[in-house]
């Protein structure tokens, strides 16, 4: 049986957390499948990363190429297609991140591999691989299996598998010649842009009051703003509020926005999609106000109020003397 591959993800000089989360889960799966765990690292001048990854894998397959300095789905796909064809891994784990979403579906299709995306559970049982993924805003889970194949591909939700210092494997680093030849044809990386720069830094606040789709329209925002003031906190928002232009991008809490860890986080009219939860779940005390008792936000909240925010928020503001 071929190896378990974990594709290392790195950006601007850092290995991204999802890589270690996948290595932790990969160790467990590789043991169940009785096969080695290999971290696959594509980059330029990344020997330091290779050493870091080698701690938790049986081997690191390192492809060094200046064309791999920044993530590029086209270049990554060529290199990985080559590696997978050569080494026939049993399973390839890729992060369900902005990189993985851009890469895994086309790579799997090119190689005719079964792919399950955004998985939050993975088990190898009686010779079969099963994945659990969420649907409908986290309200429904699906158990899926794969059509029999030599290699399976899975994208793994970020932060779904907490990395608690995995077993130290101290694997060897194997340098693989880059299969890239010539220029990357269709797609060129130009630069990074910081999109959420503004006057208010919500990551520094002790109290964050965040508002979501439940606020219904921009005119209702002052209601929640008053609550934020009464609590001595800042006003933030979930994606729909930012998309609608009701709050500026630097106020967005979530995977694609800011990650906050205030002492108190109050979620008002926020359903609690995983992308939002990723940006606030480490907060000290979490309060959720939402009229939908099934809203996933109540899974991470410490205190919940299941009622109409338009009644609760003014009452709470008044109680605080605001």
């Amino acid at each position, binding site marked *: 049986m071929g190896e378990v591959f974990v594709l290392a993800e790195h*950006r601007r000089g850092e290995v991204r957390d999802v890589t270690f989360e996948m290595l932790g889960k990969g160790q467990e799966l590789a043991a169940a499948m009785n096969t080695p765990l290999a971290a696959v690292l594509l980059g330029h001048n990344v020997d330091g990363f290779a050493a870091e990854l080698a701690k938790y894998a049986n081997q690191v397959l390192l492809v060094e190429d200046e064309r791999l300095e*920044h*993530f590029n*789905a086209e270049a990554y796909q060529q290199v990985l297609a080559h590696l997978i064809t050569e080494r026939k891994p049993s399973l390839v784990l890729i992060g*369900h991140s*902005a990189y993985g*979403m*851009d*890469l895994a*579906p*086309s790579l*799997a*299709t090119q190689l005719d591999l*079964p*792919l*399950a*995306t*955004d998985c939050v559970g993975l088990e190898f049982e009686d010779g079969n691989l099963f*994945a659990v*993924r969420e*649907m*409908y*805003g*986290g*309200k*429904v*889970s*699906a*158990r*899926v*299996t*794969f*059509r029999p194949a030599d290699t399976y591909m899975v994208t793994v939700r970020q932060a779904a598998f907490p990395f608690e210092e995995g077993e130290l494997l101290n694997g060897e680093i194997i340098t693989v010649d880059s299969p890239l030849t010539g220029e990357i044809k*269709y*797609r*060129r990386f*130009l630069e990074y*842009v910081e*999109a959420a*720069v503004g006057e208010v830094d919500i990551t520094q606040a002790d109290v964050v009051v965040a508002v979501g*789709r439940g606020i219904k329209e921009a005119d209702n925002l002052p209601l929640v703003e008053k609550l934020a003031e009464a609590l001595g906190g800042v006003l933030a928002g979930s*994606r729909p509020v*930012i998309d609608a232009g009701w709050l500026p*991008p*630097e106020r967005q809490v979530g995977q*694609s926005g800011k990650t906050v860890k205030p002492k*108190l986080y109050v979620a008002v009219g926020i*359903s609690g999609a995983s992308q939002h939860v990723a940006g606030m779940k480490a907060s000290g005390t979490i309060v*959720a106000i939402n009229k939908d008792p*099934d*809203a996933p936000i*109540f*899974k991470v909240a*410490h205190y*919940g109020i299941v009622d109409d925010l338009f*009644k*609760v928020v003014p*009452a*709470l503001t008044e*109680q605080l003397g605001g």
Partner: protein
Amino acid sequence: MDIVVCVKHVPDTTEAEIGIRDDEKGIKKEGLVFDINEADNYAIEEALLLKEEFGGSVTVLTVGPPEADETLRMCLAKGADRAVRLTDERFEGSDGYATARILAEAIKDMDYDLVLTGCMADDDEAAQVGVTLAEMLGIPHAALVISTEVEDGKMKVHRELEGGLHEVLEIELPALFTIQTGINEPRYASIFGIRKAMKKQIEVLDLEDLGLAEDAVGEMGSKTSLVKLFIPEVTTQATILEGSPEEVSSELVTILKNEGVV
């Protein structure tokens, strides 16, 4: 610029209670309100903006039942030129791969410069069809696109990464982009547009029209299979405060004071 946009007609489940069907292979759809998938609504808007700037056409395409015409008509009312619905009982049970196969078969002989999809459907949440489709069409792609610009017959796009960071790419046409929400401000259809759209024909194509084999679609054409759906276990349960808004507010303030957070 000729643009094909793939859209999906999905149930709005943000505030709805969801029940699972007895066969555990789908949710109960009765009583749910369906609309265009949120990211697809931004994709159609982006296509219309590009058409307004550079001319050309917008074709909107869906894989779905006859009820999906509601979403297609709304796209026509906003300014799409042509709508095609791919419908066949044998498409049912298609995973993201098989769905992309159906779309690819319909698109491959069209003239296009750009294919747009939403970055993710709010029902399956797989974020898979768009990038799969690009590979099947043999064109370059970019996922999670949050701005587009045309430059010398190429496109310059921003992709949304994590933590408020974007990456800027230059990409050759024809290409496929999966569009992230917030890229633009989707318009509402005008009454005039809605009236005009009522008169337009929606083309309907089935398995035979597409020339696909039966085992290329549905469960047979899929690479993953659904074992079952279930309602996830609640891992940590919030303490739910009960009473009138005044009562719960008073209780909450007491709790927060005791915890020292206010």
